[in-house]
Every structure is written in structure tokens, then in C-alpha cells.
């Protein structure tokens, strides 16, 4: 790619951008933005995040505590739904008007990091983090995202649906992928209107578990960590689930994945199991009115240690590299991640706090479903595989690309090996060269 930056073009660029009244895009015009230090010398931070009403309440409360303990800093919160959140953030970045601190997700973290938009959070203390919980926030060697809540991939099971079908819950220490297929088919057959499990073919975490058990991975370094053959075997396994009725027909699954959590088949007790993340237990408990059980993913061997699960970050806290108050921005993130006061307020709404001391401090205060999630994380802790490499720039597209090719296979429009090859080609083209 040519990287010519002759002065002629840069002058023209400034002119053109001026016409668009978007002069702030050019770095040289950064002086246009307002200094945010108030007359009293107090620093004002902007903190953007997405979520639901519960998260809004908790976050507002936590920030209030922060302001009490840090009288020199005022934090103004910018809350929104996840829809449109990243459009807004990108636009604010372009206008050099990004919030100082913002919530980040795993898809966009490497994209922003690669473009030097994220603050290096070297002053945030991660010494007390549980092993494996710091790594997801590292990009290009720098810590640019602080894990806001730990979760792990799991297969959620609804005991009530199992009971109604007269089928016992599996022993998740010894079950294999074939057991999963058999069990789901039996559940489907046992009771009309019940499905063994929700489709998992387009779940990137499920694919990640499967690949790791075959010695592959989603990503290794800056590259794809699997081949088309790996992927084809994943597609074939899922085609098997489809043919045996273990999972719903392709059209129903497509709708189910796109629906809000409360309207999904698993939440409405139509499916006995669903692949998802452990921190969503509370949401599913709430939607289904049942005590949902988190199960380990099955293995190929039936041996407990071969699951090769890992700890994830449900989301991150990041700072803008162009913030005028890097110290204060990091102080806020540090407070959210490491203080008992913040932990007491936020609890495990974003997932379990990665800081061991905080998570122990709040352990007894957690509501029952979160407690169950924590128990799950603790029980798999000794069996975890190595922390996966962070998603490289361009790799955040994987879930979307997977969904597209998986539906080609599930609707029978492409044979699995051809879809797998196309998907690998597309992913490789997306990765930042």
C-alpha cells in the first residue's frame, strides 16, 4: 500500500476538510477543542459506556463514590445502548472529541489499539489480577484495556427442561462432543416443542473451544490459528446436530441468535441448553425463572483436563490516547478495577472482578446466579488451557464472517469444505498485513 504523504496532498486535505467543517480531523488542528479544566482547577473527565438500566444505575453510583474520594476530579457520564455506541465513538474520535474513558469490547479493542487511539494504561495496577485476566486487554504489547469483568465460555443448562423431558443432566466432567449430540437429540425426541440445544455453529467462543481441543486456536499472533480443514470439521459436526434434530432448523436458529436474550428459545424454556458466557447466568435466570446451571464444554476424550477453556473479558475499560488528563483517566479506571468500594457497587454485573482481592471481598454479597457463575469459574480454574493470544487487528470481524458462512452451510447452500475455505480466505484478507 503506498504511503505517500507529500505536502501537496496534506495541504489539500486540510482544505477539503475545512470545507466539510470537520477541521478537527487533521491532527494539526487539535487546538480547536476546548480545554476541559474548569476555572476552579478541577479536572473534568468524560466516561462513556453502553448497557442496560441496571448497569447505568450501578455505574452512576460507583462514579459518585469515586468523586467523593477524588475531589479534584469530576466525571460526566455518557450512557447509551450498544446499538450506535461504536458509531458514536468512531465519530467522536474523528472529531478529536473522544471521551477520556470508555467501555470497549473485544472486537474493537485491537482496531483502536492498532491505530494508536488507546491510552497505555501503565499506571493501572494489575498486580492483584487473577492469572489470565490481564492478557485479553493487551494489544501490540501494551495494556490498553482493563478487564471489566471475567467470564468464561459455558454451556448453560436449564434443569427444569431436563426434568420435564425425563432426561438427567450430563456429568460435565466426562462428557464428550458425541455425548452432547446424543443427549440433545434425546431431549428433542423426548418432548414435543423441546429442543436439545440452541445452535452453536456461529458462536465464536464455541468454535474457539473446539479448535483449542484440536491443538489449534482462533488466532496465533497476528495470524489465523486454524485451517479450512479444522473449520470444515466444525461445520460437519454442527450439520450432524442439525440432521439429528439436536438443534433447531437453520431458519429458527438464525432468528434465535438475533433475538434479544429474553426472547431466545433457551430463555423461554424451549431449548434445554445454550452456549453462552458465564456472566449471563443472572440474565437467563431472570428471563426463564429457573436456576440455570453452567456446564463445562464437552471434550473429545471425556477427560476433565482436556477442556482447554480460558478466562475472557466480558468488556474492557480503556482511555483515549488523546485525553488531556491521562493520570486522572487512569485513576478512574484503577478505582473501578481495584477498589473494594467500586466492587461493592458494581458487583458482578459486568462479570467477576478480575482483581482477586475485590472478588473475594464481594463474594458473599453476590446474588445467587452470580454466585453460581463464580463457582463455575473457580471449578474450572485448575483445568484452564493457556490464555489465548489477543485478537489481532482485523480479527474482530470473525463473528460476523463466521455467522455468514455458517448459515451458508446450515441452509445447505454450500458444502462445508467450500464454505470453510472461503471463510479462511476472507478472514486472512481482513487481517492487518
Amino acid at each position, binding site marked *: *500500500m*503506498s*504511503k*505517500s*504523504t*507529500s505536502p501537496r*496532498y496534506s495541504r*489539500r*486535505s486540510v482544505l*477539503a*476538510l475545512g*470545507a*466539510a*467543517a*470537520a477541521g478537527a*480531523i*487533521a*491532527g494539526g488542528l487539535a487546538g480547536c477543542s476546548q480545554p476541559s479544566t474548569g476555572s476552579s482547577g478541577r479536572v473534568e473527565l468524560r466516561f462513556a459506556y453502553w448497557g442496560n438500566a441496571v448497569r447505568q444505575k450501578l455505574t452512576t453510583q460507583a462514579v459518585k463514590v469515586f468523586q467523593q474520594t477524588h475531589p479534584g476530579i469530576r466525571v460526566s457520564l455518557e450512557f447509551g445502548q450498544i*446499538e450506535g455506541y*461504536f*458509531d458514536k465513538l*468512531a*465519530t467522536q*474520535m*474523528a472529531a478529536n472529541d473522544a471521551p477520556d474513558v470508555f467501555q470497549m469490547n473485544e472486537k474493537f479493542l485491537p*482496531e*483502536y489499539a492498532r*491505530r*494508536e*487511539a488507546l491510552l497505555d494504561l501503565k499506571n493501572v495496577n494489575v498486580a492483584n489480577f487473577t492469572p489470565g485476566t490481564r492478557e485479553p486487554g493487551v494489544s501490540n504489547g501494551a495494556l490498553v484495556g482493563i478487564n471489566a469483568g471475567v467470564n468464561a465460555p459455558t454451556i448453560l443448562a436449564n434443569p427444569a427442561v431436563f426434568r420435564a423431558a425425563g432426561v438427567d443432566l450430563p456429568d460435565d466432567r466426562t462428557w464428550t462432543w458425541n455425548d452432547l449430540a446424543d443427549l440433545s437429540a434425546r431431549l428433542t425426541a423426548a418432548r414435543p416443542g423441546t429442543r436439545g440445544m440452541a445452535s452453536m455453529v456461529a458462536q465464536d467462543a464455541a468454535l474457539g473451544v473446539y479448535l483449542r481441543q484440536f491443538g489449534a486456536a482462533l488466532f496465533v499472533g497476528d495470524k489465523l490459528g486454524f485451517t479450512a480443514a479444522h473449520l470444515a470439521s466444525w461445520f460437519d459436526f454442527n450439520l450432524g446436530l442439525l440432521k439429528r434434530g439436536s438443534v433447531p*432448523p*437453520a*431458519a*429458527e436458529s*438464525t*432468528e434465535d441468535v*438475533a433475538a434479544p436474550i429474553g426472547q431466545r428459545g433457551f430463555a423461554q424454556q424451549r431449548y434445554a441448553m445454550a452456549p453462552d458466557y458465564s456472566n449471563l447466568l443472572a440474565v437467563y435466570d431472570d428471563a426463564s425463572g429457573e436456576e440455570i446451571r453452567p456446564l463445562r464444554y464437552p471434550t473429545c476424550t471425556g477427560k476433565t483436563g482436556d477442556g482447554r477453556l480460558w478466562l475472557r473479558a466480558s468488556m474492557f475499560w480503556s482511555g483515549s490516547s488523546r485525553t488531556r488528563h491521562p493520570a486522572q483517566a487512569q485513576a478512574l479506571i484503577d478505582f473501578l478495577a481495584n477498589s473494594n468500594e467500586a466492587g461493592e457497587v458494581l458487583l458482578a454485573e459486568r462479570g467477576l472482578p478480575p482483581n482477586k482481592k475485590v472478588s473475594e471481598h464481594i463474594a458473599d454479597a453476590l446474588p445467587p446466579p452470580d454466585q453460581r457463575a463464580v463457582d463455575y469459574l473457580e471449578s474450572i480454574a485448575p483445568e484452564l488451557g493457556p490464555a489465548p493470544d489477543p485478537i489481532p487487528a482485523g480479527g474482530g*470481524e470473525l463473528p*460476523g464472517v463466521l*455467522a*455468514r*458462512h455458517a*448459515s*451458508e452451510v446450515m*441452509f445447505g*447452500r454450500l458444502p462445508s469444505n467450500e464454505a470453510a475455505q472461503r471463510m479462511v480466505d476472507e478472514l486472512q484478507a481482513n487481517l492487518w498485513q
Partner: protein
Amino acid sequence: MSAISELSSLRRGRARDPEEARLRRKAGQDNAAGYLFLLPWLIGLIVITIGPMLASLYLSFTEYSLIQPPEWIGLENFQRMLGDTRLHNSIRVTLIYVLVGTPLQLALALAIAMLLDRGMRGLAFYRSVFYLPSMLGGSVAIAVLWRQIFGTDGLVNQFLGAIGINSSTGWISDPDYALGAIILLHVWTFGSPMVIFLAGLRQIPAMYYEAAAVDGAGRWTRFFKITLPLLSPIIFFNVVLQVINAFQSFTQAFVVSGGTGGPSDSTMFFTLYLYEMGFGRFQMGYASAMAWFLLTMVAAFTALNFFLAKFWVFYDD
């Protein structure tokens, strides 16, 4: 000839007498007043439309991630479009939508307009009722509703079940049908062309029909020999407008597919792909190039429409 063209013709050439010179000065003042009244709109046009358009023209020759300053890469974005198979698919999807959706929508609009043109009682009411979908159809709420109606256990399948056809087709979630469901949504928003047709039908003098009836022309003959030719300028107007509209449609596919253009890119409109590239993948330069390609495509179709108009549009005067 309108007053404005009369005045502007006066401005050509030199004034022959004081009276004409006076008229010209007056015309100049009139124009100044005109521009003054136009100013609010003009400022909007320049700041909100032309400015960003020029900026996007520049950006289309750059690599621009929104986060870092744009970098000139010449024609690379346009070259990349040649090899981008998802882009080609999105053009195909958009063309199907335009070429199938627009004629169906206009045919329905004309049919309903003719139905309403019989001087029935309560016309205003019916007109409003039929216009309603146009007001709603572009909205997010209706697109969400559409997703429910055409879902695997939605109204359509329940209705089919009631008449004995067992269907579990996901009209939105199956890549073979999803585009069809969105085209249907588009056809359903036939209100604005219908209102224009209705106005056009009102302009056709009743005496033509009477004379034709006297000569023994049947219904279809009257439709093809009188209604269609006399309505052709209106049809042309609607075709041009609706084709441009259809090319630009975004909301319906965005909401129905949950922003993905799925399943399997079957509803990946050009505009949707452009949006994904610009905001989802930080390739605003490429997205700008696509926007300009879309503009060219729309312009080409409009030009083609105007060219073809010579062969079928009939002006009465």
C-alpha cells in the same frame, strides 16, 4: 412563460430604453430578495450537503480510518472495488430490489389510485388509510414488526397453517426468501406514488372517456389508450423518484437483518455494505469511494430513464 424566465430574458442584451433599464434594475432587486429568502436553505445546502460531499470525494482517494488522519492512496479504493466479491453481491442485491420492487410498488400504487378515483364517498379517509404505510414503512418500528410477522412462528406461517399449509419457513431468516420479504415491505409503502397518481388521474378530462365509451371502447382499451398515455408524465416522474429512493434505501434492510445484511448477505444492500465498511471496519475512505460509485450508479439509471422517456412518455400540450 413564467415571470422569472420573462425577467431573466430581459436581462440578456443591452437595455434599449429607460423603461427596460428600470425593469432590469427591478429584476436585479427581485433576485437579491429571492436569494435572501433562499439563504437559510442555501446555507444548509452548502454546509450540510455540498461540503460533506466534497469532503467525501476527497476521502474516496484516501485511506481513512476515522481515528487517524486520511492518507492519499489515489485510485486504490476504486481498484479494490473491482475485486470485492461482497461488494458485487451487494450491487446484485440492490439491483434486484430496485428492478423488482419499484415496478411492483408503482403498479400497486396505480391500481389503488384508480380504485380511489371513482369519486367514492369518504375518499379523504381511504386516501389517508392507504397513505399511512408510506409514513410508517420506512420506520424502525415497522421493520421490527415485519421481522415478527415473517418469523418462523410469525403471522404469515400461522395464517398458512390455518389454511392447511404447514410452513416453518423463516421468511426473514432464510437466505432464499429474506430479500423477498424486504421487497414486499417496500411495495407496501406505495402511498406517496399513489397520491401523485391520484392527482394525475384527476387531471385527465372526463370527456375523453365519454367520447371513447360512445365509440364503444371497453375498459381495457380506455385504460391503455387514454389513461396510460395521459398519465405517462406522472408515471415517469414516479419512476425516476422511486428508482432513486430504492437505490438509497437502508433502514428496512438494516433493521430487518439486525444490521448484518444477513442471512448470508442475502439482504446486504449497497448502502448497508457501505455503512459496515465505514463504521464497522473503519474504512471510511473505501466507504466514500463506494458512496461516489452509488451516486454514479443512480445518476446513470436516472439518465437512462430520461433517455427511455422519449419513447414512451406522452406530453399532451
